[in-house]
């Protein structure tokens, strides 16, 4: 007779598939040794129940309050609210792009003016554009006196920030799609 001691743990835990369980039960009917072994496992479980957690029922609300206190103002990571800081580099890059656009306004207006003339638009609109061009030229003349270095620096800053925001978004996508949802804490 082949004993089933190696299966008794899983049998005791209700972890055997139905067919194997039937086989074990049939064996137990006929085998006092395996029955004793199962009784031993059951007795062990009853004995282990003696290891109770003291004061498990008490201080429930206090426990909850302490947890809430420890949460402080932290939010679950990856939630919508905590992801807003990723927008900062994007906002900065937009601001710098806007600044660059301001510097190049005279050129843009000149092109727009030429196009309007070509299409035969009203002189009033052309005058407004001329004033805009003049004001912008004066402003840019002052700024250009600082030197072309500022332009180059600004350009590189924009590129850097754009790259930073790109990396930020890629990391967000990676965190939310590639790695997560494993359900593993660490």
């Amino acid at each position, binding site marked *: 007779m082949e004993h089933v001691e190696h299966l008794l743990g899983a049998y005791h835990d209700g972890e055997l598939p139905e067919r194997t369980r039937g086989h074990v039960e049939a064996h137990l009917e006929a085998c006092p040794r395996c029955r004793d072994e199962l009784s031993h496992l059951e007795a062990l479980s009853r004995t*282990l129940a003696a*290891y109770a*957690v003291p004061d*498990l029922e008490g201080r429930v609300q206090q426990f909850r309050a302490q947890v809430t206190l420890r949460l402080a103002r932290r939010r*679950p990571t990856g939630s919508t609210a905590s992801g807003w800081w990723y927008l900062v580099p994007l906002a900065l890059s937009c601001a710098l792009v806007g600044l660059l656009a301001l510097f190049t306004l005279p050129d843009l207006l000149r092109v727009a003016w030429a196009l309007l003339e070509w299409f035969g638009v009203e002189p009033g609109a052309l005058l407004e554009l001329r004033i805009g061009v003049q004001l912008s030229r004066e402003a840019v003349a002052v700024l250009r006196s600082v030197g072309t270095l500022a332009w180059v620096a600004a350009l590189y800053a924009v590129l850097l920030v754009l790259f930073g925001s790109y990396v930020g978004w890629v990391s967000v996508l990676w965190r939310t799609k590639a*790695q997560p949802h494993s*359900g593993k804490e660490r």
Partner: protein
Amino acid sequence: MESLAPRPDHELIAASLGGDRSAFGALVLRYRKLVLSVAYRICGDRALADDVAQETFVRVWEKLDIFRPEGNWRGWICRIASNLTVDALRRQNPSVDIAQLSLAALGGQPERRVLEAERAEAVRSAILRLPMHVRIALVLREYEELSYTEIAEALDIPLGTVKSRLSDARRRLGQELAPYMEE
């Protein structure tokens, strides 16, 4: 009219993920016993278990976004609780073998003369003498009644390893607790 039935876990988890602290508070109340039980039975120290249990819920709150809705919530919480308990024991006694750490907590216990108390102390002592990985598997099965699959997921180990750890734990405990067992 609002239903009086308790909200299911998945609803509370989703609400917590959106920053709803009262929903998370409900989860804390619901799973407090489980977490405390896991922590205490691994470390054997009630005060430490309480601290670990609180930290477990803070960690759960912070990591809610990586929990997948179809995942095993109880197993995930047990995993965090057991990891944090081991970390806490290691912090208390960094130079001591992790399997022996909680034995220190056995010292200074008042003498217990009642038979039941003696038995409880013997069980506690025997469990705390188990190697840590075996102890955690036993606690999750014997006290928290997690299935083998849930334990395997919680501890990130194969199903066969769960079985062998449980078998090892029961063999050791069966020998140690023989004088206290009532067949």
